[in-house]
C-alpha cells in the first residue's frame, strides 16, 4: 500500500483512492473513507476545500506566468509606425560596419531588413556603442538589438533572445577532402597553424597539453595561419569561425567547432509577439537558404 501524506492529518492511499483520516480528537486512530464519495466529518471537508483553494492560489498565477505570453504591444507599434528600430554598434565587420559612403552595412543589416520585411515594415538602424545596446533596448529607444550579440544568460531577466543565427566560436579548419581529421584526437602528431596570441593560440596550447606530438605553428595573423594550411605547411588551422567560413571557397572546410559563441538578436522580455515573429522569420530564412546566401555574401573570401 503506497501512501502520500496530505496537508491535513491523514494520507491518500494511492492504491485504493481511500483517504486515511487521523482526526484531532482521535489522533493515532485511523478512519478510512473513500475520498471522492464520502469524507468523514465537517472539519475534514473544510480542510479539503482549504487545501484546494491554497493549491489554486499557487497554481493559477504560475500557469498564468508560464502559459500566457506577456506582450507589451511592441510588434503592433512597429507595424503602426512602419519601421523596425534596430540597435547596433557599427564597428563590427562583417556583421555591421560603416562603408565608404557612410552607410551602415553588413550581414546583420541585411538580416534585419529581411526580418523587417517579414512583418511588413522597413528597418531603421540606430548606431549605439556596444555597451549601451541593452540599455537602449530596455529604455525602448530601439525595438530589437541585432549586433553580433552573444547570448548572455545574465541578461535573461530583462531581455529575450531569439534563435541563434551564427556560431562565432573557434573552429578547426582542414583542407576540403581531407577526411583524416574528423576529431580532435586525430591531431596526434599533426601540425596546426594558429594566430599568435589569439584565442586560437589558447586553444592550441590546450590541445598541446593533451595531445602528444602536436606541433603548433604560430603565425602573425589568422589569414597567414590559413595560408600555411593552404600551402601544405600545416595539416590544420585553428581560427575564429568568421575566418573559417571565409576560407571555404578557397578549398578549406570547417572540420570541428572547438568552442561555441552563438550570436542571437535580443528583444525586450515583454515583447513576446515580436520575439515570435522574429523567430518565425529566422526559421524561414534558414529553411529557404536565404540565411546561408547572406552569410556567403558577407563572409566568403573576405577574411
Amino acid at each position, binding site marked *: 500500500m503506497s501512501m502520500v501524506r496530505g496537508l491535513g492529518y491523514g494520507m491518500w492511499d494511492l492504491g485504493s483512492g481511500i483517504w486515511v483520516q487521523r482526526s484531532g480528537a482521535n489522533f493515532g486512530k485511523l478512519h478510512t473513507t473513500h475520498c471522492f464519495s464520502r469524507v468523514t466529518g465537517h472539519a475534514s471537508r473544510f480542510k479539503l476545500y482549504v487545501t484546494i483553494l491554497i493549491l489554486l492560489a499557487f497554481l493559477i498565477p504560475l500557469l498564468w506566468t508560464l502559459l500566457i505570453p506577456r506582450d507589451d504591444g511592441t510588434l503592433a507599434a512597429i507595424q503602426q509606425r512602419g519601421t523596425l528600430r534596430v540597435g547596433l554598434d557599427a*564597428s563590427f565587420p562583417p556583421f555591421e*560596419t560603416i562603408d565608404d559612403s557612410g552607410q551602415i552595412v553588413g550581414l546583420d543589416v541585411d538580416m534585419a531588413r529581411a526580418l523587417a520585411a517579414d512583418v511588413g515594415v522597413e528597418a531603421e538602424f540606430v548606431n549605439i556603442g556596444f555597451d549601451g545596446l541593452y540599455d537602449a533596448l530596455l529604455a525602448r529607444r530601439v525595438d530589437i538589438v541585432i549586433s553580433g550579440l552573444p547570448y548572455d544568460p545574465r541578461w535573461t531577466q530583462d531581455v529575450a533572445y531569439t534563435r541563434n543565427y551564427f556560431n562565432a566560436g573557434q573552429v578547426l579548419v582542414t583542407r576540403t577532402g581531407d577526411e583524416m581529421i574528423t576529431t580532435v584526437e586525430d591531431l596526434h602528431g599533426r601540425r596546426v597553424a594558429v*594566430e599568435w596570441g589569439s584565442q586560437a593560440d*589558447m586553444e592550441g596550447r590546450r590541445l598541446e597539453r593533451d595531445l602528444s606530438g602536436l606541433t603548433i605553428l604560430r603565425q602573425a595573423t589568422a589569414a597567414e595561419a590559413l595560408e600555411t594550411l593552404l600551402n601544405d605547411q600545416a595539416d590544420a588551422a585553428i581560427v575564429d569561425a568568421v575566418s573559417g567560413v571565409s576560407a571555404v571557397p578557397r578549398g578549406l572546410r570547417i572540420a570541428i567547432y572547438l568552442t561555441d559563441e552563438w550570436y542571437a538578436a535580443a528583444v525586450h522580455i515583454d515583447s513576446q509577439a515580436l520575439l515570435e515573429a522574429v523567430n518565425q522569420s529566422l526559421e524561414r530564412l534558414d529553411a529557404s537558404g536565404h540565411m546561408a546566401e547572406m552569410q556567403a555574401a558577407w563572409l566568403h573570401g573576405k577574411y
Partner: protein
Amino acid sequence: MLQKPIKHVGVYADRLATTVGITPVALVWLLPLLFILLFLPAAMPPRAIELGPQRTTVTINPKMGVHTRLTDEVEPWKIKRTLEMVREMGAPWIVEYFPWAYREPFPGFFDWRHSDLVIDHANRQGLTVIARLGFVPEWARPTDSASSYLPPEHAADFGDYVRAFVDRYGDRVAAVIIWNEPNLALEWGFQPIDPEGYTRLLTVAYQNVQQSDHPGVKVLGGALAPTLAPPGSDQALNDLIYLQRMLYAGAGEVMDGLAAHAYGWSFPADDPPDPDVINFRRIELVHQLLVDNGHGDLPIYITEGGWNDHPRWTRAVKPAQRIDNTLRAYELAQGWPWAEMAALWAFRYPWPARTYLDYYTFVTPDFEPKPIYLEIQRYSRGELER
C-alpha cells in the same frame, strides 16, 4: 483571543512531533537547531584564506602595473590568486576600485571587509596599491539618480569617506584617485560637465587627506577619458580642454599627482602625440599641459590604458600587435621621468563580459594566462630580446 491560536500551535507541534516520531520536548530543541543549521552558513563570513609569506615582485621594469578588477570578486581565494598572478607576471603596481557605496552603505557605517581582503593580499604579494574612490551611495543622492551623481551638498560626505579610507589604510595604499573620467557626462551623473565643480570636489578630498592620520598618502586628480568630443557636446569634453580648465580653477594646488588614461586604440605605441588623435602617447600632451601651467613637477600615474585584440572590433589590433604595443608602452613609461607607473586595463574579469571587453584582459576568468600574459612575464624577467 490570543490563547486560541497559541493553543493550536501547541496542538500542531504535538502532532508534528508524533508524526515524525520524536517527543514534543525534543522537537522544541530540534527546530531552533535546524533553523541555525540552515541559516548560519549564509550569515558567516567567507572562509578566510591564509595570506601566506611576504613576497616581492621581481621585474626589470618597476613601473609596470595593471588595473585589477576585484570590486565584484567575492571569493577570497580568487582575490589572492589574482594578486599572485599579477606578481608572477612581474608587475609591482595595481590600481583597484573601492566604491564608496560598498564601503559606506549607511551614513557613518563602514564595511571594510572586502577592501581589507584586497589590500591585505596585495600588500602580502609585495604589490603597491593605488585606490580609485567613487560611486555614490543611494543615501547621498536623489532617488533614481546615477551612481556617478554627487550632489554638491554631499561633497563633504565623500570627503569623509576619503578620510576614513586613508585613516584605515594609511601608507598601505600609495595614492587615492578622486573620481573617474569626470569629463564624461556618464561619469558626472549625467549633469553638465563641470571642471570647476570637479576641482571643488578634489579640494574637499585633498583637505580631508591632509587632516587625516596619514597626510603622506598622495591624492591624484581623477583620470580623464581621452576624447575628441566636439565643442558643445553634452556627452563629453575634450580631455585637454577639461584639464586646462581644472588647472585654471586651481587643481594644481590640490593634488599630488594626476591619474591619466592612455589607450592606444588601433595605433602603435610609438605613434606620435597629436591633439587630434587618441593614441598612447597623447599622455605626453597631458604632461606638457602640466608643464605649461607651472606644474611640471606633478607626476603622472597611468591608471588605465592599453590595447584590445578582438578579431572584429574596428578599434582593436591583432593579438601580436597588442603584445608588441603593450611591451613598448611599458618601456616608454619606464623612460618617462614624469611617469610614476603604468597600469594597463585590465588584468582579469570575475566573469566573461561576452563582448569585445574580454579582449582587454591578460588572464581569463578561470585564471588561464593568455599569451600576452606569458610574453609580459618573459619581458619582466628579462628573457625577451627587444
